[in-house]
């Protein structure tokens, strides 16, 4: 089923002996069709897993880049329905690349939790990352999602101490997303040594793969994190690439091509065989 698409991808990455590249884009940014063009070319560009941001008017954990992308998408008609439509179309051509929806709870709550889970599964979504649903609120969405076979990926952060980690890792499926900094998306990068230590700490508590994100912007940073993490997430830098191309007046095809080229550059960082830690 769908959660196993994530497991299968991490199994094949292990077999290849390398980390995965997770590419984040905001659904509907800058406009719906361009967003689809970008999305459908991501696997070929080297994205092993796709995180699709669900636009929200008040993204409290996001920096200026992803805030602006969400606003841009909403102004151009993005909605939960249309985000799911993007996934549905993507799935018609790609059966293997996991797609994870990332965002905030209110648009899901307003949609109706049961209905959203059903529609997301039907569209081919593999998992959810919901920033404002900590373990304390698991009964809202996490437990119903897991019960239906939709993955729920938890964020662990530098402030999640050893006492709290088990609670955070409980009811997590697919992988653990380690937020490498205390801060918002697109902020300054963390010190790689500290992040490596944190990943080791998480591994003591969980057998799940660990993806690392927040503040990772360049191919060199990707390569560095790929040495110790199971996957590397890049978001704001890709979103910035879209914004720059849009502002330069590029066509939809040109914007998509530019993003794919950028992602290919980032993905080169995970394709090098990992050194043993």
């Amino acid at each position, binding site marked *: 089923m769908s959660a196993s698409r994530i497991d299968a991808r991490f199994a094949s990455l292990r077999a290849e002996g390398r980390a995965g590249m997770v590419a984040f884009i905001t659904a509907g940014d800058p406009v719906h069709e361009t967003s689809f063009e970008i999305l459908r070319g991501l696997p070929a560009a080297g994205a092993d897993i796709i995180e699709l941001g669900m*636009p*929200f*008017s*008040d*993204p*409290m*954990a996001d*920096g*200026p880049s992803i*805030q602006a992308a969400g606003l841009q998408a*909403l102004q151009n008609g993005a*909605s*939960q*329905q249309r985000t799911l439509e993007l996934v549905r179309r993507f799935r018609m051509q790609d059966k293997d690349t996991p797609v994870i929806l990332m965002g*905030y*709870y*209110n*648009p*899901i*709550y*307003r*949609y109706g939790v049961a209905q959203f889970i059903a529609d997301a599964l039907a569209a081919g979504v593999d998992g959810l990352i919901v*920033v*404002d*649903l*900590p373990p*304390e*609120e698991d009964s809202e969405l996490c437990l119903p999602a897991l019960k239906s076979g939709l993955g729920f990926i*938890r*964020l*662990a*952060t*530098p*402030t*999640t*101490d050893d006492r*709290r980690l088990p609670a*955070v890792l409980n009811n997590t499926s697919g992988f653990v997303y380690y*937020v490498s*900094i*205390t*801060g*918002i998306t697109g*902020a300054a990068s963390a010190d790689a040594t500290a992040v490596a230590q944190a990943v080791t700490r998480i591994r003591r508590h969980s057998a799940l793969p660990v993806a690392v994100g927040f503040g990772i912007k360049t191919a060199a940073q990707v390569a560095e994190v790929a040495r110790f993490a199971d996957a590397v997430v890049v978001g704001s830098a890709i979103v910035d690439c879209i914004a720059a191309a849009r502002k330069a007046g590029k066509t939809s095809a040109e914007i998509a091509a530019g993003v794919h080229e950028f992602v290919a550059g980032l993905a080169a960082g995970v394709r090098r065989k990992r050194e043993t830690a």
Partner: protein
Amino acid sequence: MTATPPNSFRSGPDAQGHFGIFGGRFAAETLMPLILELEQAYIKAKADPAFHAELDDLLTHYAGRPSPLYFAERLTEHFGGAKIYFKRDELNHTGSHKINNCLGQILLARRMKKGRIIAETGAGQHGVATATVAARFGLPCVIYMGAADIERQQPNVFRMKLLGAEVIPVTSGTATLKDAMNEALRDWVTNVRDTFYIIGTAAGPHPYPMLVRDFQSVIGREAREQMLQREGRLPDSLVACIGGGSNAIGLFHPFLDDPDVAMYGVEAAGKGLETGLHAASIAGGQPGVLHGNRTYLLQNDDGQIIDAHSISAGLDYPGIGPEHAWLHEAGRVKYVSARDDEALAAFQLCTRLEGIIPALEPAHALAYVAKLAPGLPRDHLLCMNMCGRGDKDIFAVARMLGEQLS
């Protein structure tokens, strides 16, 4: 309507921070350990007589409590109905009820050894109160304020700067209170280890709605005692304005289990509920999740938050504290609204008849009193919370009345 009322309306929230289905802890993981730590620190402080002694001393000698309960004789005559009392929280140091909460929270910050204070502000009242207590205790302070609000609340912006706070304009979204709160949360998530976020209204993730309510309940406790002393009985009705609802919950809470005391929370109807340009989350919103809690929110069908509108920067927020959402559904408090033009008329009326310049926020409460009082008997005791003074608003009001102040 037929649901059995709870044994007490004053026992919430539960251990998870819920008032019925409202409230909760919808916060990013980065903040969760601190939020849990704050809850523990508050539970400990509440049980510590030294904490209460220090807070009471500050409330008395620094903030100037108790605030008077004033019989508004000429407004009572003017409306020709209920006997109108004002709870004069505008006479507090810094000019509003906000200082009650800020003193409580900064004492918690000190106990938790947090060396930096942040806050959001709409009208600037909470920002001024926060900057004041930060100055008093020598802590650096950053205030997030919507750029649009900075424009309409210049005197308070300057006050905060004089007090040594850094005021950071927020230009995202509609550049008002909700965006300031988003930005304060972004700061907090970035500087969580050394920073204490003094939330100004009875909203946010648990335990904030509870602790803000507790710190503001001094208003209702005093009003209760003062009314008993003046009139020998409890008031018949209470009226307070609602943005997030901290002054209202502070007045209401000590009376919630007195079934004969009617309560009215007055939301800002802006240009009119039918225009969509308002800040009335209960009248015009649906339950949703924002800023750490589930409550009534102005939102569209897709769950995107809709911008609020009000003449009053302090009420210009698309949500309401979760305890109010619950009291609404439980039917204990009646939530009503007043438009911009009605508030502006009440502002002028109060100034002329009572010699009290109200803030535009309580002017909304008074605008509803103007509708309610005339139909009530003369022995009906009505207590309205005059939660802020209007000095900060005179430039904005002058503009609306077409006067030029240089």
